[in-house]
């Protein structure tokens, strides 16, 4: 057993784990944070997306022991002072889901995506790599392509993200 300490949604966590335990299994099985979902368990669907030090990752392909000392945020950690995260509200308002199974991953991914875009990161559809890319629908679809939605709620998902982008631009 390996002892591992990390921060999860702002709280210090200290656990002893076998090295093959994934971050996903630690979150769901040991910490009871079942908002993060297991879809494919092979990094193909994005349902297990969480944030590690603010960067989105697939928790199914992460060995928990490798996240010693890191700061993990899951869907349960996005609300502030009892208020849902703006993306959570926007997903509801824009029908960014049907069955909801991919939604935690979609929202965590969108939080990470907006931070990447805010830091100036280009995408595969960015016309000029050295110029800032506006978050068009095409840019959002490309940047969110690591999150599959079997219900096909993509139009609502893009709409929810655009709503938050628009509000931040106004602010």
């Amino acid at each position, binding site marked *: 057993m390996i002892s591992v300490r990390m921060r999860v949604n702002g709280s210090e966590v200290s656990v002893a784990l076998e090295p093959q335990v994934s971050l996903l299994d630690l979150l769901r099985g040991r910490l009871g944070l079942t908002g993060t979902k297991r879809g494919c368990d092979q990094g193909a669907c994005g349902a297990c997306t969480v944030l590690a030090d603010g*960067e989105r990752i697939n928790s199914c392909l992460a060995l928990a022991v*490798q996240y010693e000392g890191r700061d993990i945020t899951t869907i349960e950690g996005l609300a502030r002072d009892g208020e849902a995260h703006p993306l959570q509200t926007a997903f509801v308002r824009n029908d960014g889901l049907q069955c909801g199974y991919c939604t935690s991953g979609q929202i965590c991914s969108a939080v990470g995506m907006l931070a990447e875009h805010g830091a100036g990161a280009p995408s595969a559809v960015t016309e000029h790599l050295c110029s800032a890319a506006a978050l068009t629908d095409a840019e959002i679809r490309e940047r*969110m392509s690591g999150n599959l939605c079997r219900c096909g709620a993509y139009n609502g998902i893009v709409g929810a993200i655009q709503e938050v982008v628009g509000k931040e631009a106004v602010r």
Partner: protein
Amino acid sequence: MKTFSYVRATDVATAVGAIASEPNAKFIGGGTNLVDLMRERVESPDTVVDISALPLTEVEELPGGGVRVGALTRNSHLAAHPLIRARYPVLSQAILTGASAQLRNMATVGGNLLQRTRCPYFYDDTAACNKREPGAGCDAIGGFTRGHAVLGASEACIATHPSDMCVALAALDATVEVRSVRGTRRVPVDGFHLLPGATPHIETVMAADELVTAVELPASPLAANSRYRKVRDRASYAFALVSVAAALEVTGGAVAGVRLALGGVAAKPWRAREAERVLLGAPATEESFRRAAEAELAPAAAQPHNAFKIELARRTITATLRRLLTDGSAA
């Protein structure tokens, strides 16, 4: 997944010492490929040496204008780095077309170099695979071969290399730095990956106890005028059917410099030297581009389901060069 001993390395000397002293040990960086392969029972190391905390994450300019990239630089950080975007746009684009944003945030440059084929018969432990089990045979041959190699394949293996990043590195003449308890050596990326021949389980020139520590990109004025084009079954987040990394310099209407490499067609990133030879000094025209593409693909041999890749590679080479000529760099 079978359990294993876990060693957390904090410096390079400890890491290469640990791998040398443990039989059947593997390094783990981002884990995106190894964890998946361990879960599928394709890989089953007894010891995993965690290198993710090693100080190999610098992207720094070299005297003379090249760039040195630490092997543990995350794929996403490299693609977004201002030096790479401006001087080696083909590399930024190639990385950005690979995998998903989540995987690029986890995956390292060294791990990307060493990722293993996505051949479904390699992944399926009920299928025969010479790569997984030397001498077992190859169920891909005579199987469903749509994604398989058309260049450099052998009777033992027709798998392709899955990386996009490596295709750009091949076009850029990058050098891979590897370290072991015996010291440090440098390998040109074009000689780093191996064609399958009779030993498809030997995929690179690296020994089992060597660690990739860095990739160096040489200074190249040509590289700034470069692009990557990837053709796949869906618009994003899929492996290449065919991809092209290209850099082009045209002077007085003639090709003064060109670098071309192909992905999705062979067991290694395929540096298209024959096409480069045909193009050098030729008029920079669609006709020359097509002739060069035909020369490169002349030795191609299709499997029953992938003949389309040969024409697709010709067209993608031609289209990528045309785009560089008309629109210039992706930067």
